[in-house]
């Protein structure tokens, strides 16, 4: 089932074209990462999905309803970027309030705060919380009442590495239960391993929408092979493979994706001269730059 459908969404602020014909879907159980430079339109798109701001043209369907309608809001959870709460309330009071707004039992508040590791600070005022702790309150409220669609704007900003891992584990659980998840992030490495599909926005234009593997194929970026030679054999290895020697033992090779196996064959043919070989596929950073830059070029032309 498709929990979120966007088609040809366009939004202009005064002079800025924030979104230009953006269209993609997020299905039940799917985790989609929304990537893009600062000002690419990620937060704007999310606010449109939540019905917080109007859009100029295109269609948006959230759980079969209009964005921001009562029915849609009941099934959607949101974590804004730079989430803020009233500093005078405690974390527990704040979550109890949100539970009651959703018609849930406020008694569940402590359990939610425990899930995000805030049970010790639950009875302290949010004004005394650190940035990461406020972010966790934001996560806790996004978990209220089995949302069918979670829209998370930079959910891991301010979280420490351990909490990030816990956060993605939590997302996995939610996705397994059938929730659709759309999250934006600037931390590409964590998104790489933890999401099913990647959407890249560049100046409001969607320049990519596919799985990481497919994007890698489309981008056809070179793969790097790092060959470690036996002591003293580095020069010979570099000469034989037409590679560049980096230091005493390492030789770098670059090849297209479909030449990779042939190249590896040549390396193994050298037998005893080789200590080890490492295959380094293009990283998400490389793929991301490829698609963003490509779009820039198009814009200039």
């Amino acid at each position, binding site marked *: 089932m498709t929990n979120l459908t966007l088609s040809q969404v366009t939004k202009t602020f005064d002079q800025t074209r924030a979104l230009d014909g953006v269209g993609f879907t997020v299905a039940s159980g799917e985790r989609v990462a929304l990537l893009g430079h600062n000002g690419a339109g990620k937060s704007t798109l999310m606010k449109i999905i939540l019905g917080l701001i109007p859009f100029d043209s295109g269609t948006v369907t959230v759980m079969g309803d209009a964005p921001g309608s009562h029915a849609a809001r009941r099934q959607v959870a949101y974590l804004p970027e730079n989430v803020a709460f009233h500093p005078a309330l405690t974390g527990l009071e704040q979550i109890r309030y*949100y539970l009651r707004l959703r018609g849930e039992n406020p008694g569940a508040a402590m359990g939610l705060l425990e899930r995000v590791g805030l049970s010790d600070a639950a009875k302290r005022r949010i004004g005394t919380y650190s940035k990461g702790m406020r972010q966790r309150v934001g996560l806790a409220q996004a978990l209220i009442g089995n949302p069918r669609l979670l829209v998370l704007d930079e959910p891991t900003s301010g979280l420490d590495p351990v909490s990030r891992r816990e956060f993605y584990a939590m997302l996995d659980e939610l996705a397994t239960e059938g929730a659709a998840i759309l999250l934006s992030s600037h931390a590409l490495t964590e998104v790489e391993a933890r999401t099913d599909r990647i959407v890249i926005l560049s100046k409001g234009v969607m320049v990519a929408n596919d799985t990481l593997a497919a994007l890698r194929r489309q981008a056809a970026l070179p793969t790097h092979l790092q060959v470690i030679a036996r002591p003293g054999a580095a020069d010979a290895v570099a000469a034989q493979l037409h590679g560049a020697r980096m230091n005493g033992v390492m030789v770098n090779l670059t090849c297209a994706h479909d030449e990779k196996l042939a190249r590896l064959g040549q390396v193994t043919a050298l037998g005893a001269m080789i200590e080890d070989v490492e295959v380094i596929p293009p990283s998400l950073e490389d793929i991301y730059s490829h698609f963003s830059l490509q779009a820039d070029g198009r814009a200039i032309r």
Partner: protein
Amino acid sequence: MTRIFASAGAEFRIALRNRWVTIAVTMMALFSIVLSAAGSAPTGVLGADKLSVTVASLTSLAVYLVPLLALLMSFDAVAGEVERGTLPLVLTYPVSRAELLLGKFVAHLMILGLAVAVGYGIAAAAAITIDPHASAGIPALIRLFWTSLLLGAAFIAIGYALSAIARRPGAAAGLAIGLWLAMIVLYDLGLLAAVVADSGGYFTIHVFPWMLIANPADAFRLYNLAASEATAAAAGIGGAASTIPAAHALASIILWPLVGLVLATLAFRKVTP
């Protein structure tokens, strides 16, 4: 309903933590004590019991103080949330903007009611201790209490509307102070000047009474004074009070909170987070 009470509960807690409850109650109590002390000397009003006289002075005090307290509590309601950045998240919850405003309204009205009850209670207790016949004034006191709530409700709602229009707490505070000055102080002065200039003409007879009840603060004063003849003599605009039916003044103070809430909701709907 649960959503309105949920938001009222959170708002009441915030007001408690921000000392708003303490400030409002202390302010009303202090003024009542001063008023009782000043009024403890024998007054010249014949046949009036002590409490009725107290109610008359409380009425003139409430006209200034209740709108002020109401505006002080309400000007931050929308603008403050915009400034803190708490609005986008709560607006994605399945709760309407009207419900959010009503929640705040219930909380703020409760605080105002508490402050007014404490203040009037002190003044009434002082009057009853001095004058054994003071219980005759209790109906007037009760009337003063619920009309004060209506007056406060009107200005709380108007404060929300200003808050939503201003969108920034600083601007909202400025608007609230300006409104208080205009409606409570300048309005009467302006009307008075117009009446003097008109010297009993068409304006004084046909326009002035309506303009008087159009302002909730004046309607409040008129209703309370008209309803208690014993104190009408003590009032400056007693003459005008006699030409306006009390029911019209009452209608004005009942309508204003509703009009204010509608205006506030409309203004709040225009706020994009």
